[in-house]
């Protein structure tokens, strides 16, 4: 459904951010991109969003190439990035400009209700807490009903408790329309809590190191043995990706599944 083929990204300053990254994601699948800093996971997300163009390779959604921001792809940034001069409701409706006002209002009301912020529509973004603002930014991306939702470490700036709550919120939101979800994170727990698959990346240049299935039913119990196992698998791959000498493996992704990775 979402298909990345042989993506290469070299920045103008010569930094080699991505080297031959290929990844196929099925419709409705949740994939976590995990990796240390500088492994190109954010770059990868920006290529998929169309905000940046790859040096080589293609991104396509349902066979349609993505070269610029596309209506089928929504993005949630690391910071909420709400427009401070728009109310919460106007922020959520930002991408619905083409709809008649009444329809837009209904969609926004529904969205606010879904993230537990009913009645917050007329507020200014500055009146929201960090967690509330990020919830608004998530529904701002979801309200246009994208087929693919990209998230760039959306909860990394929040405290652990808020983060766990928002992860549950996110799953509930995802449940409703089941978009394909590509989530960048450096938080192994987050990957295990949300993802069907954790793709571990390796830095300098950014490559896929391991592709780990997390075949756990939802809702997931964060204390269950399976969950702990999945976390350990991802963590192990992450350690492996960082201890390898850069360039030595040639960027071949290793196929692994939970429990049999080491």
């Amino acid at each position, binding site marked *: 459904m979402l298909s990345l083929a042989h993506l290469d990204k070299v920045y103008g300053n010569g930094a080699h951010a991505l080297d031959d990254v290929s990844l196929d994601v099925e419709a409705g699948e949740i994939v976590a991109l995990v990796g240390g800093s500088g492994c190109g996971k954010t770059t990868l997300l920006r290529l998929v969003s169309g*905000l940046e163009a790859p040096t080589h390779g293609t991104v396509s959604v349902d066979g349609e190439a993505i070269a*610029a*921001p596309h*209506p089928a792809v*929504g993005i949630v*940034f690391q910071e909420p*990035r709400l427009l401070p001069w728009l109310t919460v409701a106007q922020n959520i409706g930002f991408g619905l400009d083409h709809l008649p006002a009444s329809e837009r209002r209904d969609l926004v009301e529904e969205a606010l209700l879904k993230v*537990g912020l009913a*009645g917050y529509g007329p*507020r200014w973004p500055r009146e929201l807490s960090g967690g509330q603002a990020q919830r608004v930014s998530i529904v701002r991306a979801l309200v246009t009903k994208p087929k693919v939702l990209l998230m760039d470490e959306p909860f990394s700036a929040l405290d652990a408790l808020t983060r766990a709550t928002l992860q549950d919120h996110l799953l509930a939101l995802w449940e409703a329309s089941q978009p394909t979800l590509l989530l960048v994170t450096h938080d192994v727990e987050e990957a295990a809590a949300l993802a069907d698959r954790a793709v571990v990346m390796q830095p300098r240049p950014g490559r896929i190191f391991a592709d780990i299935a997390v075949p756990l039913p939802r809702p997931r119990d964060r204390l269950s043995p399976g969950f702990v196992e999945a976390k350990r698998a991802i963590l192990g791959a992450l350690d492996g990706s960082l201890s390898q000498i850069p360039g030595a493996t040639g960027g071949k992704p290793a196929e692994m599944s939970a429990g049999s990775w080491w």
Partner: protein
Amino acid sequence: MSEIQTLDLQTKRNARASTRAASSRLGGGFVYGLILPVAAALLYEAAFRAGLVQARLLPPPSRIAETLWKLAASGELLTHVIATLLRVGLGFGLGAVVGVLLGALTGSSSLARRLLDPTLQALRAIPSLAWVPLFILWLGIFEPSKIALIAVGCFFPVYLGVMGAIANVDRKIVEVGRAFRLSRLMLARRILLPAILPDTIVALRSGLGLGFMFVVAAEIMGASEGLGYLLVDGQQLGKPDQILAAILCFAILGKAADWLILVATRPLLSWQDSFARSG
């Protein structure tokens, strides 16, 4: 749900409390601001009445008020005020419009910035008053040369402010617009314009302040009406009360014009975190 409602109530209460604090702060600030000048005026008046000071060069407040009242009653003051305001209005309008346009151009296009900005910066380095002889040669000694001087004075802060505001727009916010596939025009209208508004208003306020500065210069150099003329006239005829009356008018007009910009733009900036403090 109930949790959210409690939260809601709490926020509302906080909001109300902060509004109350802001209004009392504003009102209180107004009163506090008056204490010093009013006390000084009363003290001086009392000293004058008691015969403690010679008031030939510094007339007491009562005499300034009397002069002001006489000027106002004869209709003369209105003529001068209107003349001055017209000059400031026209000069500021001209300078601000050109400043906003050129600032927007150099701010948004790096080619335009490389072409225009060095020249404009060089022109900025020239003290605006140095243009006066040239403007008088070109435009004559009447209104056009005065308005040109004021326009030049107002232009630079507005130009610099708008250019800087555009350069400082957060790339991350612009990216939101790009992610939602806004056209260049819509990006300018829905993202850039609101983002630069606060800085632009500050630039306009400082431009207007300079406008009042340069109107005095223009009127002192030769005018038959205007508050600046009252200043010169007061000096030549030895009427310090008239000079002080004119200065008082400048203070009131300048403050009122600035306040007008503030009030006119307040609804546009209610979203700002820092607005209460800057007001």
